[in-house]
Every structure is written in C-alpha cells, then in structure tokens.
C-alpha cells in the first residue's frame, strides 16, 4: 500500500514536473505580436535570430487575413477577434518574404512583409 502510494506520488510529481517544464519552455520563447490590417503587416519586418524559436501572434481588426511564409512552410488564418499563433524556429539566416494569402481587398496583392534572420 505504501509502495503503491509512493508510485502514484512519484508519477504525479513526474507529470507536474513535466507540465512545469513545458510551460517554462513555452514561456522562454520570445513572443512577437504582429497586426494584420488593410493592407499591411505591422511590423512589416520581423527580426529573428537563427536557431531561436519564437512565437508569432497575429491579430486583425479587419476582415479575415492570412499569414504565409513559404520558406518555413508555415501559414495561419488570422480571423477577426482571435489570436493566431505560429511557432517558428529559423534554421538559416537571410531575408524571407511572407504574405497575406486570404484575399482581403484591393491592396491584397501587395500585402507582404519580411522575416530577417541574423546568424
């Protein structure tokens, strides 16, 4: 009975430790907030460091927008009233374009931005 209690307690501690580790790991990732509005992303250039995972948080006050960074094979719908999150861990330095891939109006074709990754 004591052994069983100890095993359960140990398992519980392990889960708790794992959860804490998970949330600490998430909390350590830098969060970059980006606003999508007709017809631009603010900021237009997202500065990242090679190998540093970040979380991009997108919001829009307009119509449905999209975020698509094909070089990193990530995309997200940015719906009004919601926060869209994309985790990105750039593995190479350089400048990479991203764009809105949900048609949002007359300036949609030029709605794009840049991810600048430094080594």
């Amino acid at each position, binding site marked *: 009975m004591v052994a069983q209690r100890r095993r359960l307690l140990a398992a519980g501690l392990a889960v708790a430790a794992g959860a804490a580790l998970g949330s600490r790991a998430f909390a350590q990732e830098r969060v970059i907030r980006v606003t999508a509005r007709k017809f631009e992303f603010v900021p237009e250039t997202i500065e990242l460091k090679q190998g540093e995972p970040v979380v991009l948080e997108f919001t829009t006050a307009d119509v449905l927008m*999209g975020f698509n960074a094909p070089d990193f094979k990530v995309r997200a719908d940015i719906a009004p009233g919601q926060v869209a999150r994309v985790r990105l861990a750039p593995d190479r330095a350089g400048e990479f*374009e991203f*764009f809105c891939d949900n048609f949002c109006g007359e300036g*949609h074709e*030029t709605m*794009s931005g840049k991810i600048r990754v430094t080594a």
Partner: protein
Amino acid sequence: MTQAIDRRDFLKLAGLGGAVFVSGLAGCAGMGGAKQEDFYFVQLSDTHWGFKGPALNPDAEGTLQKAVAAVNALPFEPDFVVFTGDLTHTTDDPKERRRRLAEFRDIVGALKNKNVRFMPGEHDASLDNGQAWKEFFGPSYYSFDHKGVHFVAIDNVSDASARIGEAQLAWLKADLAKQDKDARIVVFTHRPLFDLEPQWDWATRDGAQAIDLLMPYRNVTVFYGHIHQEHHQMTGHIAHHSAKSLIFPLPAPGSQPKRVPIAWDPAQPYKGLGFRGIETELGKAEYEITEFPVVKA
C-alpha cells in the same frame, strides 16, 4: 474540317493573331463516344472593370469595349466566348460591386455572339463568397458539353482562402465520373490549379485534389487567368494555359521580388494585353491557341 483549315490559314495570312501555341497530344483520335466536330471559342480574362490607375492603363474605361469590338470583328464567329474571372476590380462597397458587375454585363452584352460563359475571379467574389457575382451570372461552378467536348468550370475564388472546397470537389468527382477515361475534357478556372508561384499567391490551396481527380482522364486541358500573361505548363499529361489580361500585365512568375504590375508603355499602348482564340482539331485532343491584341498594331 475544311472550315477549320480555312479559319486557321486565314488568321495566319491576315496576320490577325500573335503567337500560335499548339497544345495537346497529337494523334489522340477517337476520344469518347460523343460526336466529334471541330470548333472555335474565344477566351477573355481579367478585365477588372472599375479599376483606376492611369500609370498602368490610362484607357481602363475603354479597353473592355475595344476587346468586345475586336472579338466582334473576328472574321469567324466563335462557337462561344468565355470570361475566366476578375470581370470587375474589387471594392469593399457591396453597392459599388454590383454597379461594376452590372456595367460589365451591359458592355459585354454588345458581343455579337450571345453564347457567353462567365466565371468569377477573386476580385469579383472573394469578399462576399461570390454572392453578388451569382446574382448576375448564376452558379459559380458548372459543366456543359459542346460538340463532343466536356467543359468544366471550377470556382477557386469564392472562398477567400483560394480553396475549391470539399463540396465542389465532391461535385467535380461526380461530374467526371460520368465521362469516359478518354473523353475530351476542358477545364476553365481562374487561379492556377497547380503551385505556379505560391509566394505571389498564384496557386490554389487544394488544387492538387482537383488535378488528382482529373489525372485518370487522358485528354484534359486547363485554361485559366489570374496571372495576367500567357503561360503554359504541364502537370503530368494535363496542359495548363493562362490568358493575358485586359487591364494590365504582370511580371513573369518569380522574375522579380515583388508582383508589381507592368507600367503602361506610351510607345506601345495596350502592350501585353489581349485575348485568345482556341481552335479544336477534329478527332484530336489538340488545341491551337492564337493570341490577339486588343487593338491592331
């Protein structure tokens, strides 16, 4: 057939058309069980009625009428005319959208040929899921048969995320299921079904599913618009041909960092704009494409 040869020779001799592109699998005679006849149709695309931008097209309010007049002046009457989307330029104002659609409909009403097929582009349909466009032109996806060829119009624009969608893909599957595997099939759509240049939004997010459905059919050709220039590409045995615009040209896919429209050249007005005639070959899954300018040089 005699008329087809006469028509082709006449167009060449008269110098009416530009480059001629022959698409298809020569020698694929005897497709399907339907009666085969040669015929001729005209594709116009990306007219963007309502666009204003003198640096790109100082005759934005007159180019469409000139194209209609040029089609009417063709020496041979086409069997039908198809507009492959972006009939109007987008606007956030629903009333203005309907006004532009109405004006477009009235202008193209001057076409002598009354067998006209329409398709939406994202500028017409993406901001209201095609609602206004359908009020004027009916269903946004459909099929029809003409002289032994099965035509399928696919809507990849009413969904702002550039998806055909599960419901339409199910319809497409059921529609194609009625065709023989060697039937002659022509697809009209607005965006490319394949990933031509995803960075420029020149793709259909679930287009690969449509291509997968078409792939078992041996004689399939796709005519589309959206990219404002002539472009020819194969996905397997399926040929895809994009049409020029009637408002402003765009740069070649991936040729420059940004998809910036090509400015109007006063020395060569209407350069890069035009429409095309498509000639079918009797007994062949072959299409001869002749490009026409908006105005004669």
